[in-house]
């Protein structure tokens, strides 16, 4: 085992295929609270709340907000760092019952972009990923075999996956294995 394992799989090793790339946002937060806190947070972020199962918001901005539960959102900031964003949100949420937790480094982001992306995901994810059922712009917490993931559909064949960092190795190995049935000469 080389020390590339210190960051999970070590993207950029030969195991990491071209269609599966690490993407690293600037910050991630888990935001939890009641409707008014979530609405206040959305106002502060300048985007609509992702207020229904499977919903995402922030398209066209540098933020992505994903519904994880009735009172829980995952916020991904692509540019703003955790300190700045955290302070901004805490200010907006002052006096509101809420929980804002920095999880920037709890998980890693993987971009799965390939014609076979949905089929490959369905090797381990039981969701119906037909574009009519899980349209572009949807996001949800789900499973890929034995690991939790958050799945966000950026395009018909373009997905962003969030996975806890120590499960990345498993996820990437699994996908590389399964992809042999879709792209034998990766």
């Amino acid at each position: 085992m080389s020390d590339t394992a210190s960051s999970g799989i070590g993207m950029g090793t030969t195991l990491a295929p071209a269609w599966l790339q690490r993407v690293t946002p600037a910050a991630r937060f888990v935001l939890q609270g009641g409707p008014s806190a979530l609405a206040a947070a959305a106002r502060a972020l300048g985007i609509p709340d992702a207020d229904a199962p499977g919903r995402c918001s922030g398209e066209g901005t540098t933020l992505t907000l994903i519904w994880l539960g009735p009172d829980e959102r995952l916020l991904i900031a692509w540019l703003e760092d955790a300190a700045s964003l955290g302070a901004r949100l805490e200010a907006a949420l002052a006096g509101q019952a809420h929980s804002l937790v920095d999880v920037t480094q709890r998980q890693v982001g993987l971009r799965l972009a390939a014609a076979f992306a949905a089929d490959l995901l369905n090797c381990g994810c039981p969701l119906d990923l037909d574009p009519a059922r899980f349209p572009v712009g949807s996001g949800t917490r789900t499973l890929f075999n034995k690991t939790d993931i958050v799945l966000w559909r950026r395009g018909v064949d373009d997905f962003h996956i969030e996975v806890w960092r120590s499960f990345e190795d498993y996820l990437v190995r699994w996908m590389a294995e399964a992809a042999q049935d879709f792209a034998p000469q990766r």
Partner: protein
Amino acid sequence: MSVARLPTGGQVGRDRTLRFSFDGKSYEGLQGDTLASALLANGVHLVGRSFKYHRPRGIMTAGPEEPSALVTVRRDAARSTPNLRATQVELYDGLCAVSQNRWPSLRFDLGRLTELFSPLLPAGFYYKTFMWPRTAWHQLYEPLIRRMAGLGEAPLLPDPDRYAQQHAHCEVLVVGAGPAGLAAALAASRSGARVILCDERPRFGGSLLCDDRSRIDGLAATEWVTAAIAELAQNPRVRLLPRTTAFGYFPHNHLGLSERITDHLAEPPAGLARERLWQVRAQQVVLATGSIEQPLVFPGNDRPGVMLAGAALRYLKEQAVMPGRRVVIVTICDSAYRVAFEMQAAGARVAAIIDLRPDPSPAQPDGWQQRLRQAGIAVETAARVLRTRGRGHVSAVEIGRLDAAGLPTGQRSIDCDLLLVAGGFVPSVHLFSQSRGKLRYDEALQTYLPGDSAESERSAGACRGLLSGLAAALQDGAAAGAAAANASGCAGEEPRFEIIEDSTAATAGRLPRAEAAVSGPKAFVDFQHDVMLKDLDLAMREGFRSIEHIKRYTTTGMATDQGKTSNVNALHHAARGLGKPVPSVGLTTFRMPYTPITFASFAGQARGEIFDPVRRTPMHGWAVRQGAVFEDVGMWKRARFFPRSGEDMHAAVARECRAVREGCGVFDASTLGKIVVAGPGATAFMDRFYVNDWSKLAVGRCKYGVLLRDDGFVYDDGVVARLAEDRFHVTTTTGGAARVLAMMEDYRQTEWTDLDVWLTSTTEQWAVIAVQGPRARELLAPLVDGLDISAAALPHMAVVHGTLRGMPMMLFRVSFTGELGFEVNVPSDQGAAALDAICEAGKALGLTPYGTETMHVLRAEKGFIIIGQDTDGTVTPDDVGLTWAIGKAKPDFVGKRALARPAMHAPDRKQLVGLLTRDPRVVLEEGAQVVDVPGQAPPMKLIGHVTSSYASATLGRSIALAVVAGGRARIGQTLHVPMPGGEIPVEVCAPVFYDPKGARLNV
């Protein structure tokens, strides 16, 4: 050309011959053959030996129901698949098949001797024999039976092939691609619905593939199949899955399909999965699973050369194989007549049709009698096959009639080399039954048909009893497909087909199933398990009344074919024998899988490195470079110890322990579970969840928390820090992280909805580096960018935010070693850098990496428990000396009521104590039992057991923790640990061996 292959016809590729071997002998076949058809083409009928009596067996069917022709197909030593039905094995060039259950050879099998003892081996013999003497079971009977039992042999090498798994969703799943299934798929797909169509055979078409006389929409049947497949294939919303068996029907229209991808290929491409397990969630399911022809029961009905009539027709029409030249057909229904016409037309001589029915002709189509006369086919009505003759292969049948007493009259013999049997078609209701649909008995067809559905499912065609005619099946399939599409929200329309049917097409006619069986020696009901009619009779004589009991007693229907060709005959014979109507005898359950599925298919990709996630910490690479030996803790790889050259674990751990006690050590504690509990209700939540009182914990301070289940037993523990009035940083055990969070969420969401509190796992947000030992502060102080970490500023059990060489840091002053200790938390990405900085600074101080083993020893010296090692789910806080942690003034917490039960305070509860062996060099075994009276003979009175035991380098002797009944009252007593080498005397002591006052912590 092979002996039985017709020069023209069939749907086989004739431009190239395929070579294959069976039992070492080479043969030739054609593309489109199954192993069974290729063997028949070469005149090979004897293909296996039966399970119990080793009787010679041939090929009886042409499909998945085959009970007898089971073979092993070998590609290499690792790729050897036993118990395959030769009727389903697709031929490829170089295929190597061997017969099973015979020694030394198929023709000369010593196992055949068992048949000599068959009178001694009646049904249920294993319940009656081998009982005495009792000791003989393990030494004699079981090894012997194991050698005799079983069929093919599983390969001993690891399976080198890949196996894939795939989830899929659709509006309409159609199972079976015969006429009904194809029509259903066409109808459903035209609505725009997503359709999956699967069929276990390599080609779609089902019965249409052996029908060259019917016409659909102006096309020959096979041409229509080609056109239908072409239409479906060009529809992007249709997925066609040939070679795919729907084997299981699970709740909510969740079906398991097994796709065989490479088994039919001579040279499977490297890397391609051998099989794919589909998990399909369908809004609507159309079952078009067809029907299975049943054999008839008469003496010698298992002889090679006895074959189902429909199977012979398939071999003739699909592979142009004529399985016999002189044919006798025995039937209880009209389907055999078409086979007779076709066999005769293809050049065979049909010597006679033996029809059980006294006068079958009135119900038969016009013109049949004339055709029979023209063809010179004699029909013996009200007749039966009384027995078969032949050595190894059928050479003659003895026919006759039964008089009123059931005795044979008018016997005569007819020579033949093929005896075709037509016991009527039975709808394949396996999947319907698996779906929990209710079966109903149909008197006319004398079989069970689908009744009320339990799922969003409908049956179409032959599988729901439409056994007579192509038009009915096609149109029924079309209606089902359209209805399924409509039910799934798509606008389905039922296509109409112009159908001209083969005038000889199989029709059921009357089915005198109950009277069909002819008793006598070797009249088999279940061919795979060698169950005879007389075995069923015996079971009934011995008092069995339900078919479920008869089945288990005789094992009929319990072989790998699940009784596809035996259950119906067994059921009718039992009903007749018991004098009851069939439905009141009961019906055995259909279970998944429909046909055997490989274990590898269920495992899929989950093997080797991706069997389970392997979790590594951000500092894993550092531990590797330090030469760590790892252990698995849950899914985590944790460094257990860091041996230097020449050191064993004992030496390494002793050195690591001394380093921590005397200088400083560094330890990767990242795997500890971490949960942020935040919100205005956080304190109330913590008060209700943990036994401790959190209200008085100051911000910036930590406390050891104890968690019980609601039964009052210790569930988890860990240090909790208060980061703000409304925010706690909770740590859990490594293994408990997920379950503690799940339990918290359970209470939060279902019990305590009054609290505004939220939970977030931060286990992986932080890399945790424990720096422990008397020199820990000296080491860290220069690294923390001016932060005051003196005893006054950062006392034991305190937390502070700061930076470590510019990296954001949460610094905990905590200790699981009993020494001055810190746990540096930095964001995970910076864990490796922070650790490097600490190690660099630690060089001058002799900083020593230590692993989980040393951590275990150090904490045991201090009497700190490990959840799951010193506790086992039956331990109260008091049992392990943690009563001090309980917030006595709190109105409630999880487990409080349970702790009030008298039994939780019984004085003889097992309590945590220390044990010191009289000989300090003796290290007790963990798990060893403890007794108080020495010299007892087993069974001894056991009063406790050792939970933790180590050689302590610090103390220069062994130490152990144990739970002992009434242990605290026994302190000072001598107890005994009985071991194979003798009893080990131990002295009971308090479970703290080192620095009991904690002087080393508070410095």
